[in-house]
């Protein structure tokens, strides 16, 4: 963390207009591609892969060998999360990504999840 913890909000601009990167596509519904949606590249039909934008290519290259969350994809590619969501939606649609969406909240699921989280924390930190 070379930039130090907890600085104020960092306001930055981007050189390429965002609508260019996303080719004018709109944001998919929020719940579909969350910060914690996990993605990895999967074998692509050659045609779809050939026509990728440089940014979409960056995404597929990054997750070529394993799973990362959308937040991590955003951090590593330095693309805003909103852009990553649009690109991932497009790549998912083209069959170039394997996507593990967060499970929807439901009482029974939550309960099981919470005990798994608790067990995990206790095991790992001996707390």
């Amino acid at each position, binding site marked *: 963390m070379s930039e130090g913890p907890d600085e104020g909000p960092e306001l930055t601009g981007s050189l390429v207009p965002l609508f260019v990167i996303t080719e004018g596509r709109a944001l998919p519904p929020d719940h579909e591609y969350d*910060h914690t949606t996990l993605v990895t590249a999967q074998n692509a039909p050659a045609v779809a892969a050939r026509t990728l934008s440089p940014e979409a290519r960056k995404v597929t290259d990054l997750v070529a060998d*394993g799973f990362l*969350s959308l937040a991590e994809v955003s*951090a590593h590619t330095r693309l805003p999360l909103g852009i990553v969501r649009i690109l991932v939606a497009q790549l998912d649609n083209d069959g170039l990504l394997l996507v593990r969406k967060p499970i929807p909240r439901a009482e029974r699921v939550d309960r099981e999840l919470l005990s798994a*989280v*608790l*067990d995990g924390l206790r095991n790992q930190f001996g*707390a």
Partner: protein
Amino acid sequence: MNLQPAAVSRSPHSPEYLNPDVSHSVKVLVVGHFGVGKTTYIGSISEIEPLRTEETITEASEGFDDLSGLPDKTTTTVAMDFGRRTLSNTLVLYLFGTPGQERFKEMWEALSRGALGALVIVDPSRLDQSFAVLDLVERFGLTYAIAVNRFDGTASYPLDEVREALNLPVETPVVECDVRDSQSSAKALIALVEHLMTHFG
């Protein structure tokens, strides 16, 4: 003659992939005012060096555009730090440091969706600065616990006084936490998860 292997230096940030069996991801928001220790906390729990992502938000500027009479809206980018901890073969936890200002509520909306809850980090000597954060946490319906950060050199602070000063419900956990220490940080998270579980009886 250049003996430097070009391929190696070209990719300084090769990503640390998740265990391929991980099928579930959960998130917890780590919230608090600037300088309270959110990123340090995330670093204490995270298995990867905390990462930074950016989000574009639209915000209304102060006042109105004089000529049109319409609210002046601007688009800005807000940086947010986050970390990751794999909790089992199938489960990964993400911690998102979320700035606690009213003007970031668009970001809060997206982040709070599907979040298990929030850990609110407070500085006992600047409790008044935590009200805005608590307001947001409550508005977005997040269940939360309070971690009272023990800053270097500060005396231990009576937790009851924190509870009273922040006007917290009796059931809300208030725990002391050294955000630089992994185990102490994990205990605060455990207090939050235990509190979440009481909702199911």
